[in-house]
């Protein structure tokens, strides 16, 4: 466990903040890897590693958190100077290919995709949000990716609809070599199915309940895979063959619960 101090806080949306801290080891994380963030006496949360904006990428890293439950709201409310614990990075990252890539992300699922775009030139990013308020990382993305397409469910900004709508349109017209996706499972399932239909390789960063983060407790089991070790990034061809993906997850006791 490494104790780090939050050195900067950036408001991304009314519910999402990025916390920047100095930690060389996390700064070395590959896109898609996660760290476990310790909130002393409160909880420990798995967080995808974000880029540190203007701070030195070799020394700094960041996490972007949406306030939802008690623990994530506590983390969201941390201020400059507050201390958190970090361990990791853990898990399988996106496999970087120097080909024409297409990124599809939604919500805080954009975090590993932004890191990927920073580490490797990416051609197109489609980012989905519920409404204008929830659109995050847009300027950042435009500074790194050749083309950025924004969709909102309610049409309050960018294209009206889901991120998967322009995806279909693009694939009809253009050729991409790989699709990377992270976001709500329903969205990722659609993305992987579309990629599969067009015969394009895909990778998705998945999520399940994460406890130990190091392959011991199996809280994050998805079929026979353990996401903290075999994932969180897995190949689309494997994911589409899973029985539990898009249908159910294991709760804290290990019982399968439907997500539909």
């Amino acid at each position: 466990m490494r104790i780090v101090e939050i050195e900067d806080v950036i408001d991304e949306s009314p519910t999402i903040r990025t916390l920047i801290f100095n930690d060389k080891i996390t700064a070395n994380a590959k896109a898609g890897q996660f760290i476990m963030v310790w909130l002393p006496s409160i909880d420990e949360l798995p967080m995808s590693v974000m880029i540190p904006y203007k701070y030195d990428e070799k020394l700094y890293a960041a996490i972007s958190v949406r306030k939802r439950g008690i623990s994530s709201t506590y983390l969201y409310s941390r201020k400059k100077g507050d201390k958190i614990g970090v361990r990791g990075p853990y898990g399988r990252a996106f496999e970087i290919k120097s080909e024409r890539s297409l990124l599809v992300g939604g919500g805080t699922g954009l975090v590993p995709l932004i890191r990927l775009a920073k580490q490797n030139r990416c051609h197109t990013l489609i980012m989905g949000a519920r409404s204008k308020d929830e659109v995050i990382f847009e300027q950042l993305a435009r500074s790194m990716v050749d083309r950025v397409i924004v969709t909102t469910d309610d049409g309050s900004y960018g294209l009206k609809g889901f991120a998967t709508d322009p995806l279909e349109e693009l694939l009809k017209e253009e050729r991409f070599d790989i699709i990377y996706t992270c976001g709500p499972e329903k969205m990722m399932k659609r993305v992987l199915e579309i990629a599969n239909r067009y015969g394009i390789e895909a990778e998705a960063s998945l999520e399940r309940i994460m406890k130990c983060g190091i392959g011991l407790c199996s809280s994050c089991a998805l079929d026979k895979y353990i996401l903290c070790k075999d994932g969180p990034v897995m190949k689309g061809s494997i994911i589409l063959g899973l029985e539990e993906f898009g249908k159910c997850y294991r709760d804290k006791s290990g019982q399968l619960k439907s997500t539909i």
Partner: protein
Amino acid sequence: MLSTDICVRLRNPTLLASGILGISYPVLKRVYEAGAGAVISKSISIEAREGYKNPIIVKTEHGWINAVGLANPGVEYFAKEIENCDIPLIVNLVGSNEEEFGKMVKILDNLKIIAYEINFSCPHVEKVGLEIGDDPELVYKIVKKIRSLSKKPIIVKLGLGSSNMIEIARVANDGGADAITAINTIRAMCIDIDVAKPILSNRIGGLSGAAIKPIAIRCVYELSKAFDIPIIGCGGIKDWRDAIEFILAGASAVQIGSAVSERWLDIFNEINNGIMQYMLRKGYKSIDEMIGIARY
């Protein structure tokens, strides 16, 4: 060459320790297919348990301290989870009294599982595990109850409590236990000095890893001297050398736990291959020939 007997014949002496990965059948099966001689489920209780809040594990200099809190889906759900079991699976059970164990065995006994392992040693949950494992009378009653209900082998998993381990092993043996696993994690704690707080949410957990191996070796040595039943060594095994050391101390098999985190599932094949190379070099033809030969 690697097969061994723990009241049931196994293809090799490396078992997946209870508490590690064993919550779902697909994962248990994958661990067996990756090379384990048998796999042991997480501790299963009468009712489902969510376990403790995070953090549930912390790495220390020579091991890990965990307090998962016996998260498990409960016996009825787990029985359904493993209903089509076709691998050598040992179900680990945890409970507070003989009635609870009796109920669980009745639900599980018709399934194709090869043995029960009774958790008398979890050091971080109240009223189960080590707290009952320290009570010789209760240990005797529980083992006897399970014996009266099942013909399957009963393995008792012991730890370092306030009672004498040999005495607890003796009453378990008297009650009808067929084998002994030694040892469980050892009650331990870790405090972060920057924020001046214990790291684990439960504050206290169980220490595993290299730090406890010499203690586990001593326990296996003493138990195997005192009893004729198979002893299964557990505690800090990370490579074939550790496994051999346990076998020479008197273990018929070994369990791999936290080291899975470092070497992942290849660890079973790696240890088995290492044991085989050692046997070839030394001229041993079976695991049996090596068990306990360091004793004098």
